[in-house]
């Protein structure tokens, strides 16, 4: 389809232009506050729980997240909400209450840095290299996807979109490091919400509220269930995703979700910037409350699209065969065009651009930290000055962006790479969660076991992927059903690789020598003095707010069962 979906007015262009001026201005202003490594890589460890918490969520809220999950909601209905609720909330609360004390008290700069303290250099090197590879690849893929979206929606040239948005992100992270990334993420968080929620409000008005929307969906798509979270998950064939509840609960809700939210340094780095342990514990809890609300700006527009759009959207392959048909991925821009006039449309597009930039800044700042501390300092130049590492971090930011741009151009030539994005998480994040969680909770886990468990989990995950790739009939073993879709396969593969990582770690630990308990202080449960919160009033305690969020999470799942 060559025709663009939206046409921007001069007011819309001013709204978008002002956004770029503001993010660059923030970067220029913050440069004077980022002099030391602690400033550049951890924002001076001076963030309040609110700023760290909002940035924690915003770094995950890429524009592809907004458009992609709105599209998934149109395709699969409310099932897509699982990625925001069971696929996020328990893990975020677990990070805040159980894991954050060890990350924070150990004073590590990064997740690979924690592995160095707990298991030694080899585990750190393996996780740092795989994280760097994954981050740059993801960044490039997201960059290309964003440029493609801007071409389809606004008719913008792909090269223009890639270079302008990337150079802006590179500039403000180069200038102000993580501090600048975090500040802009908080700004972007506001813009994403204020730009996107208008569609949900006006959509509900047009549809006649929630019940009116459900009625219209049933009328438009008779015989299909788009509005129940759990009711259709009793069998692989009773829901449009081809997934069973065990896959959602164990694969998504446990391994993938806990792996991503507790060990992916892109998000954990935001929390490490908190000013004290209580703020570090509160940040993921605050983030989880907002994460729980994100379906109202992401999933709801997709459901409203099912209810109010006069045409039925189709998949990419069908759209290619049907001239003029719109795809699932266009549902959010179509809803924006449906309700937003000049000014509001600019705000909505700014929300998409802000989402992309917050996600990319997250990738770039995390990559710069892991490269500088866990690869460059650990393996290449161990005894340089702090200012040398800050300079390396700044140049690495630019290098990371340039490599991401190069990756985007590679993706442009080999589009099939896009199909494998989700698989990356099961390769690297799921086993990493096994290693980190055993390292934090089990004193007996040995340095050798940490490395071999992580390696075995990663290699087995890639092997399972290749097995199914070359022999599709293997799907019935990996995903427990020949009918499983890609998402289901990724979830089960993640689960198996986590189990393999844990089993190998436990077995190797039995045959190798553990670290003395004295060396595990501040790193492992049972060997760490965690400050008591007994003197703090109940309403200021993280555990209280974690309980509140969990109760709301349970109630929402019951309401939309």
């Amino acid at each position: 389809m060559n025709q663009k979906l939206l046409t921007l007015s001069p007011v819309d262009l001013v709204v978008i232009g002002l956004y770029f001026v503001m993010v660059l201005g923030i970067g220029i202003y913050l440069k004077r506050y980022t002099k030391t490594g602690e400033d550049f890589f951890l924002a001076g460890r001076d963030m309040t729980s609110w700023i760290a918490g909002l940035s924690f969520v915003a770094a995950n809220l890429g524009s592809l997240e907004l458009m992609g999950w709105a599209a998934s909601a149109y395709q699969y209905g409310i099932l897509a909400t699982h990625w925001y609720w069971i696929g996020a909330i328990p893990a975020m609360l677990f990070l805040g209450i159980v894991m954050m004390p060890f990350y924070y008290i150990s004073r590590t700069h990064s997740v690979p840095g924690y592995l160095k303290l707990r298991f030694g250099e080899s585990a750190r090197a393996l996780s740092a290299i795989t994280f760097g590879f994954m981050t740059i690849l993801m960044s490039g893929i997201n960059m290309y996807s964003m440029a493609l979206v801007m071409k389809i929606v606004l008719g913008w040239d792909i090269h223009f979109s890639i270079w302008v948005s990337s150079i802006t992100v590179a500039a403000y992270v180069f200038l102000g490091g993580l501090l600048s990334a975090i500040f802009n993420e908080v700004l972007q968080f506001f813009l994403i919400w204020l730009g996107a929620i208008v569609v949900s409000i006006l959509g509900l008005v047009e549809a006649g509220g929630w019940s009116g929307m459900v009625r219209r969906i049933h009328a438009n798509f008779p015989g299909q269930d788009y509005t129940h979270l759990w009711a259709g998950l009793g069998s692989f064939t009773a829901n449009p995703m081809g997934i069973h509840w065990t896959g959602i609960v164990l694969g998504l809700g446990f391994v993938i979700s806990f792996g991503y939210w507790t060990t992916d340094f892109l998000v954990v780095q935001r929390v490490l910037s908190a000013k004290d342990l209580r703020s570090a514990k509160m940040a993921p809890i605050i983030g989880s409350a907002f994460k729980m609300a994100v379906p109202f700006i992401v999933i709801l527009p997709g459901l409203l699209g099912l209810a109010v759009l006069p045409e039925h959207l189709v998949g990419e392959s069908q759209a290619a065969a049907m001239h003029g048909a719109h795809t699932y991925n266009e549902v959010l821009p179509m809803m924006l065009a449906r309700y937003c006039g000049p000014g509001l449309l600019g705000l909505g597009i700014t929300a998409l651009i802000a989402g992309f930039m917050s996600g990319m800044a997250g990738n770039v700042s995390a990559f710069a930290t892991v490269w500088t501390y866990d690869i460059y300092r650990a393996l290449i130049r161990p005894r340089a000055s702090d200012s040398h590492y800050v300079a390396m971090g700044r140049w690495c930011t630019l290098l990371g962006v340039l490599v991401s741009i190069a990756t985007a151009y590679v993706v442009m030539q080999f589009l099939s790479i896009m199909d494998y994005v989700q698989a990356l998480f099961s390769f690297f994040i799921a086993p990493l969660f096994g290693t980190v969680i055993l390292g934090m909770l089990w004193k007996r886990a040995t340095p050798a076991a940490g490395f071999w468990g992580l390696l075995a989990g990663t290699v087995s995950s890639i092997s399972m992927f290749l097995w199914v790739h070359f022999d599709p009939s293997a799907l019935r073993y990996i995903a427990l059903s020949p009918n499983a879709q890609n998402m289901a396969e990724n979830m089960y593969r993640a689960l198996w690789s986590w189990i393999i990582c844990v089993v190998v770690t436990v077995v190797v630990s039995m045959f190798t020598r553990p670290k003395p308990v004295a060396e595990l202080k501040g790193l492992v449960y049972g060997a760490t003095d965690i400050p008591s919160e007994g003197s703090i009033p109940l309403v200021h305690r993280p555990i209280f707010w974690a309980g509140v969020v969990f109760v709301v999470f349970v109630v929402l799942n019951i309401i939309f069962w």
Partner: protein
Amino acid sequence: MHGPGFISIWFFIGTLLTIYGVLITATGFYELGTPPANPPVLFSLHAGIWWGFVLLAIGLFYFLKFFPKKP
């Protein structure tokens, strides 16, 4: 954070939202007098005006509350 004279992020947010609020409200009022040839769905609700006011209210709150003080 970061000592005296440090401008809070909330001030930057307030500034941008205030400008957006003014721009979007003004555009909404302009469209009230000069309706577009192809209006969006629910144009009669004039979303630009009320949403512009919401942005302006949030923006002004943060702009004034976190306006930088002299160190």
